[in-house]
């Protein structure tokens, strides 16, 4: 809150605020996400106070920021939301599902408004309906709001004008320390006021607070003596989290007044502005004791006030800082991080080059050099890992969007669906997270639309009425595996094969289940009997598969009819650097992604058998595998004609295995993946290139394409 006023002040100082816009948009976005999460979790029958408060705080923060930066439409909408939320958290209104819906819609509208302000274009967002709806809820609860007491009727009337002059006074001066009497109430639960005392303990710069009534209260009112350097507005904003603004009244206390008058910087306008507050105070019927209190307490307070000047006024400035100071995160543009990653990539190459060139150095003679190089190697690897981890973000950022989507979708389809997520903390490269979001959204939609049955059907099949969609993310080796599971109707083998044949796809009855399920990845394939606006048009699964394949990932489907279906997406952790195995063929060197290498072994030429004269297979532990000679695939020139390749590297991709025949295994190293297409074009069976320790380029093999090659 302190921040806000500081920024507010800077408007008048003519400082360009636009530099803070980005921060505001990001924070507002986070607040919106947070609010949506909280709203979705609210149990309307028995809403938790803490949750309601948290939602209120989100709306309040957005409103504050929007008003500061002059986004009137955002501020207006959040203001109305705040009003409704305020009533909810004060239990003047009972939350219901319709309110949650309106609030969620408002959240969407806010997001759109923010997007528009951020320059993504679009029309002005019409929020009239939302505003009317919210107001209706607010007023609909007006009747119960009046019940609390006669005081309540009087108090708001009296309280309303009070903060205004006080605020005027506060903004007019940068106040030093002053002494205030604070009245809180009427409260249904008196212990709420004790939260304020706690607040002062937590925020040490705020000042001191002492109860004036020793915890006793006659009429639901509590009175405190406050010694503070903050403005009334700041205090009220802080208190808002515990008690409503209207319930707090701040009045300068006797000696505090004197202090004010004495302050040389205080404009003369201030005393009168505070005066009406006093006047109101006297008239307020709910607090007869209030008027007497300042007088009665004046003497001891004077003693306190004597101490006041010894406390320097500097805390006034410091008060607004803590929020900014204990920030533990840093927002950095993605380009900077990418540049860092590129540089580290170059460093890795240079290090590998040094390591290779120093292999022949006698360690006895150049002990320091070799130990230095060993240090360099270790530090380079550590540096690389830390830099790569900057880009890693948890899967939760993807998963968090699904509860909302499913809620809307399930409501639209008339289904009951529960979402279970596991492994949200699993981390994945940011660029991958962005690219995987759409395919995952599609899979979840599919599960909800096609997988989960209508509640009645589920009951008829003896399943629980509510369907479950489970999202699981986990690390497996060098990859991340994301599973989308549902307990719906599953895939029907006969139906799939029938559809496939209608589409002219070759689908023999002897297909394995895995092959059968993968039919749904064919373009234009849909098993839905009815096309809905959600899915069923048959555009989708092929796109999902294409997108995931382009990320170097794979998709697998497992299904049991009547019990559900599981789609597993396997992705590499990062696209920039990978572990590779270098193999030699003739004089050339190729890189195999280590993650796809299963094993390697030496073969005798007689264990390679031919099939139909040309196809060659090798027997590995009772399994016959197609053999691919890299020499032939890449047309490697040979000068030593007697040489016979005798090493097999078994690689696995897309559910198939092939044995690659190579001359020798050269080693394993981390390689920085470079794009061949940047300056050249796509090369068959090659997924990219890298730079070896000696500065030469080596091609990285596309194992998926090699496996496909063996199938045709």
């Amino acid at each position, binding site marked *: 809150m302190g921040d806000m006023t500081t920024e507010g002040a800077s408007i008048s100082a003519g400082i360009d605020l636009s530099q803070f816009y980005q921060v505001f948009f990001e924070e507002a976005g986070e607040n919106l996400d947070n609010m949506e999460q909280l709203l979705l979790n609210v149990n309307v029958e028995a809403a938790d106070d803490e949750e309601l408060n948290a939602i209120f705080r989100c709306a309040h923060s957005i409103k504050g920021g929007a008003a500061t930066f002059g986004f009137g439409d955002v501020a207006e909408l959040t203001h109305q939301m705040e009003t409704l939320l305020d009533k909810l958290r004060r239990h003047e209104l009972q939350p219901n599902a319709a309110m949650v819906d309106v609030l969620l819609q408002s959240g969407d509208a806010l997001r759109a408004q923010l997007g528009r302000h951020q320059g993504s274009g679009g029309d002005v967002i019409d929020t009239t309906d939302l505003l009317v709806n919210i107001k209706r809820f607010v007023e609909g609860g007006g009747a119960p709001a009046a019940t609390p007491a006669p005081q309540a009727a009087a108090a708001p009337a009296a309280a309303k004008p009070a903060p205004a002059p006080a605020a005027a006074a506060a903004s007019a001066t940068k106040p030093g320390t002053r002494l205030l009497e604070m009245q809180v109430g009427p409260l249904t639960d008196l212990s709420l006021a004790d939260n304020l005392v706690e607040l002062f303990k937590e925020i040490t710069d705020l000042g001191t607070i002492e109860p004036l009534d020793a915890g006793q209260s006659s009429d639901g009112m509590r009175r405190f003596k406050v010694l503070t350097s903050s403005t009334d507005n700041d205090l009220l904003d802080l208190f808002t989290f515990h008690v409503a603004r209207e319930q707090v009244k701040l009045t300068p206390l006797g000696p505090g007044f004197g202090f004010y008058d004495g302050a040389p910087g205080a404009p003369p306008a201030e005393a009168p502005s505070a005066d009406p507050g006093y006047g109101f105070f006297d008239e307020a019927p709910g607090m007869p004791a209030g008027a007497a209190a300042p007088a009665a307490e004046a003497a001891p307070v004077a003693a306190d006030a004597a101490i006041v000047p010894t406390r320097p006024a500097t805390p006034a400035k410091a008060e607004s800082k803590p929020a900014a100071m204990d920030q533990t995160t840093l927002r950095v543009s993605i380009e900077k991080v990418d540049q860092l990653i590129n540089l580290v*990539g170059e460093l890795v*190459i240079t290090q590998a080059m040094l390591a290779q060139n120093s292999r022949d150095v006698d360690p006895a003679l150049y002990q320091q050099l070799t130990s230095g190089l060993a240090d360099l190697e270790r530090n380079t690897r550590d540096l690389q890992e830390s830099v790569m981890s900057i880009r890693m973000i948890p899967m939760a950022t993807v998963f968090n969007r699904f509860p909302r989507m499913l809620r809307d979708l399930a409501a639209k389809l008339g289904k009951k669906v529960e979402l279970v997520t596991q492994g949200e903390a699993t981390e994945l490269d940011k660029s991958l997270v962005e690219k995987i979001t759409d395919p995952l959204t599609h899979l979840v939609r599919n599960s909800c639309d096609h997988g989960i049955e209508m509640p009645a059907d589920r009951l008829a099949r003896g399943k629980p009425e509510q369907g479950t969609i489970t999202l699981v993310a986990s690390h497996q080796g060098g990859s991340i595996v994301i599973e989308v599971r549902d307990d719906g109707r599953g895939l029907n083998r006969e139906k799939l094969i029938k559809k496939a044949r209608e589409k002219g796809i070759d689908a023999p009855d002897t297909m394995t289940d895995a092959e059968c399920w993968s039919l749904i990845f064919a373009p234009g394939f849909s098993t839905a009997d009815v096309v809905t606006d959600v899915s069923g048009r048959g555009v989708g699964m092929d796109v999902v598969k294409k997108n995931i394949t382009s990320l170097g990932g794979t998709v697998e489907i497992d299904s049991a009819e009547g019990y559900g279906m599981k789609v597993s997406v396997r992705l590499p952790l990062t696209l920039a650097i990978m572990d590779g195995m270098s193999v030699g063929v003739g004089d050339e060197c190729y890189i195999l992604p280590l993650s796809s290498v299963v094993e390697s072994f030496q073969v005798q030429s007689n264990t390679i058998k031919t099939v139909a004269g040309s196809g060659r297979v090798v027997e590995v532990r009772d399994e016959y595998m197609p053999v691919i000679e890299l020499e032939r695939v890449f*047309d490697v020139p040979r000068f030593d004609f007697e040489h016979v390749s005798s090493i097999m590297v078994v690689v696995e991709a897309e559910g198939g295995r092939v044995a690659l025949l190579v001359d020798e295994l050269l080693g394993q190293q981390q390689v920085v993946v470079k794009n061949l297409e940047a*300056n050249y*074009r796509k*090369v068959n069976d090659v997924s990219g290139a890298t730079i070896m320790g000696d500065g030469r*380029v080596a*091609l990285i093999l596309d194992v998926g394409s090699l496996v496909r090659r063996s199938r045709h």
Partner: protein
Amino acid sequence: MEASNVPALRQQGAVTAKSHGPKSGEYLTFRLGSEEYGIDILKVQEIRSYEQPTRIANAPDFIKGVVNLRGVIVPIVDLRLKLNCPSAEYNSFTVVIVLNVKNRVVGAVVDSVSDVLELNRDAIKPAPELSAASVDTSFITGIGSVGERMLILMDIEGLMSSAEMGLMDAAIAA
């Protein structure tokens, strides 16, 4: 496929030649066998000595492969093979002109680089009408004469991005 593409290409080449025109300016001259060529100096990024590139399987023979240019993977085209020079030897004088065309980096192998010449308009004669037997003439924009020397001025950007070169995917070359 090949046959139908060729006339279209020639036309495209001719258009490029016309629009680029034989313009005055600085030209980098180099030798391919006994012929001397000139290209727009602004397309040249740097000149390096030849190093053995990494071969790319199933590429046309004039694409020698790719090299590492300070962390960037750059394809290497041997212009001598592309322009049908009788011999293409790799010795200590063989150089690679690193070109920057259409935001891509490409290396071109030539026998030797001579010098940089300023050519004004009247030193540039229009390209002669050669028989269409050789497609490559479409990328010749004019003939520059400097004293006794005859320079064949070439639209290197058009040549490098042409489909028959196969250096770029069709969408980018267009």
